[in-house]
């Protein structure tokens, strides 16, 4: 499941408030399900990445409004490392998706700019509120 899906920006012509999201998830079906849920919530998923490297590449290329990042990724780079790079270099907020929280992972996540995290499984409402909070903080940090 290393494939990535790039969606042309023209693909979702819509409301200017429609946020552009990048989903980083190494399980293709899980990513697909996430994309479906986000779409049902009115977000535009501009790409899916399966690894940290892909995430940096796609984010650099398409400059999403937000990245939904799975922490445990296959490959050399894990989600936390990739998220740190993206936030610092591209100024894009990242919301972590994690199925399970252990002390160590939480400590790493909390050291990053407080854009939030979502514990899986989660209801759509929860997902949406976390995304919105992150987007609003980024847009108007003051």
């Amino acid at each position, binding site marked *: 499941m290393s494939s990535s899906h790039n969606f042309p920006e023209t693909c979702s012509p819509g409301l200017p408030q429609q946020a552009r999201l990048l989903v980083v998830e190494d399980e293709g079906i899980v990513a697909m399900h996430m994309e479906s849920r986000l779409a049902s919530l009115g977000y535009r998923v501009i790409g899916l990445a399966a690894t940290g490297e892909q995430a940096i590449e796609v984010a650099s290329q398409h400059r999403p409004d937000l990245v939904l990042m799975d922490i445990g990724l296959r490959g050399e780079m894990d989600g936390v490392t990739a998220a740190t790079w993206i936030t610092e270099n591209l100024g894009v907020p990242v919301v972590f998706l994690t199925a*399970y929280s252990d002390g160590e992972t939480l400590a790493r996540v909390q050291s990053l700019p407080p854009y939030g995290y979502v*514990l899986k*499984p989660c209801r759509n409402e*929860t997902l949406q509120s976390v995304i919105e909070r992150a987007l609003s903080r980024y847009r108007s940090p003051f």
Partner: protein
Amino acid sequence: MHLNEDSASIRTPDKQETASISSRDKRNLILLEELRQTKERLELAQIAADVVSWEWDLVNNAVYRSANSPKLYGCPDAATMDYAAWWRTIHPDDHYILRDEVQACLAGRREFYAEFRVIWPDGTIRWLLGKGKVYKDTSGVPWKMSGVNIDITEKKQAIESLQASEARLRLALATGKMGEWSFDPRSKRVYWSREQEGVFGLRPGEFEGTIAAFLKRLHPEDVEGVRSRFESAIASESPTYESQYRILRSDGEIRWVASRAAFERGAERQVLKVVGVIVDITDLKNTEESLQRSEEQLRMITNSLPVLMSYVDSGETYRFNNATYEDWFHRPRSFFVGKHIREALGDEAYEVLRPYLRRALAGENVSFESEVSYRDSKKRFVRANYIPDVDELKRVCGIFVLVTDISIQKQIEASLRESEIRFRTLADSMPQIVWSAGTDGRIDYLNQRFFDYTGAKRADFESIEWTRWIHPEDLGSVQRAWADAVQNHGVFEKEMRIGNVRHRSDYRWFLARAVPVRDSDGRVVKWFGTWTEIQHQKQVEGDLREARERLSLSHEVLEAEVARRTEELRSALKEKEVLIKEVHHRVKNNLNVVSSLLGLQSSAIEDPSAKDAFRESQNRIESIALIHESLYRSKDLSRVDFSEYLRSFIRALFHSYGVDWERHPADIQIERVEVSVDVAIPCSLIVNELVSNALKHAFRGREIGKISVRLGSVGGQHVLTVEDDGVSFPESIDFDNSPSLGLQLVTTLTKQIDGVLRLYREGGTKFVLQFPRSK
């Protein structure tokens, strides 16, 4: 030069005289008779006066002596002795004088007069005076000598004594040890010369001149004796007085004096005056005493020595024997004196001793040891010394004999020799090398085993150091240890190699040991030691050491192997753990994928109940996925920290039902328990169903209430409680036979974990699940 006796002078008148008698007849007969009587009287007078007459016929060389000759010569046949026999009686010292005198007389120079000594057969020496004259014929040739002998021994002795006493007197006067005194009985005055005062230690004129003053200067014990002797001398009318006594000098010294006095008496024999001399004889007394003492000591020593001491004359006759003779032979000493050795000791003993006696009598100092069988004593082993008694003319007069009994010594020597032989026999038969050494550490004995082993010869050993047989590498330490032991009298113990002298390479190991031998005073007198071969032991020790080394080596190899294998196992385990983790991770991911698939499928469904069914299924699958995640994060991969799991899981479940956890958190009180994966999955599904049930039904149409989950242990059971304060579980529903899938799952899973589920409906709903701890 020969003298004759003259007992026959009557029968040998002058020839001329005989002719005149025959011619004058009767007148002559009367004269003859007178002559005979005169001669008879003369003869009687001679006998009475102990005068021996003699006549020597020079022409016929015959001697005539009077019948009383034995009185002077001490032997019964003295009257008939010829010249040679007579000459032998003369003391050798007087031979010269006598010969000279006779020659002078015969030469007509003077009449014969000589004082000489004769020795009686019993050894008595007597002084004789000889007087005589020579008769010559008409042509002046001597034809006869005649004369007399008188015994003058007493006179000679008196003269000698007088001479000695005169000498002493002279000496005493010269040395101031003599004084004079006198006593006048009428005035009772005593006069002392200055010398006399000197003898008493007084200054001239200090003596008071009374009898009392004299007596107070005598030794108290002698006062009475002096007084009584003096008085008895006066009373006895003796012309002289003599006494010896002790005086007290003024300086306190006690001295011996001899006093002599002469009494001058009047017509009535009364004493008119006493004149005397006093002589200090202390030195003489002391000399006498010390002589007596030393003689006494000598006698005691001689008699107390356990040796025979005797003097034997040249005729092999005992002259002196000490008291030991009495001890040895059980006879008085008088038995031996005067007896010939053969007679005293017996023939058998004499035959043994004779050759040595002969040598000693020939002037040789003889020492010998011999076994002698004495007649009156047991057989003895003796050591004897014969020392010849030689006079100034080198003649052997006798032998000093010294005999020691060395029987016991000989016995000891013999038994010592025997024990030495026994020791050597024993030592030679021992398998060890046995040796002994003196206190200086030099070896003085080695048994046969040493010579057998080293190939050395006993003769070699005298000249070669024993260290020659020791291996050069061991030599230094052995010598040091030995020197140390000898110096400190400690025990010597050392292992060393000893070789065969001919084959230097053939060395074998020995254990050398030595102990000091001490006498009764604890002094070390000898060393006794052994060398025991320990070659075999050494070999075994070496083999053992090698075996140990090999063992140690194998041990190390084995350890390394174990470490390697352990490391392999550890890494294999690690690989396996990684693999298991990976499997759990994979399972979890797969379950997530399944959950997503259900989610994707449900997004196309419009029917709300169908959508709920999908969501419930998704929650069930995710609860299992969560178990796998917990597993791969756990340390042991087979057990789950169930308390930690439940917190995360319930929180996620709340999220999935859209309950704001921040506002309505569940009351979770969970003890820390670990359960196996077999229990964890059913248990989590049960919690999923019960909590979901509460979230779905308890608070329908109202604000969400309190949901509490508790997990604890009671006895051997885990107790899980899920409780809410919402609407009570409907009485109408029998949860054991509910058509609801959720409750059917709960019932089935409770059975699966051997649990018991109870439902309580007071003030809400309360499910209590009990299941065994071991599960």
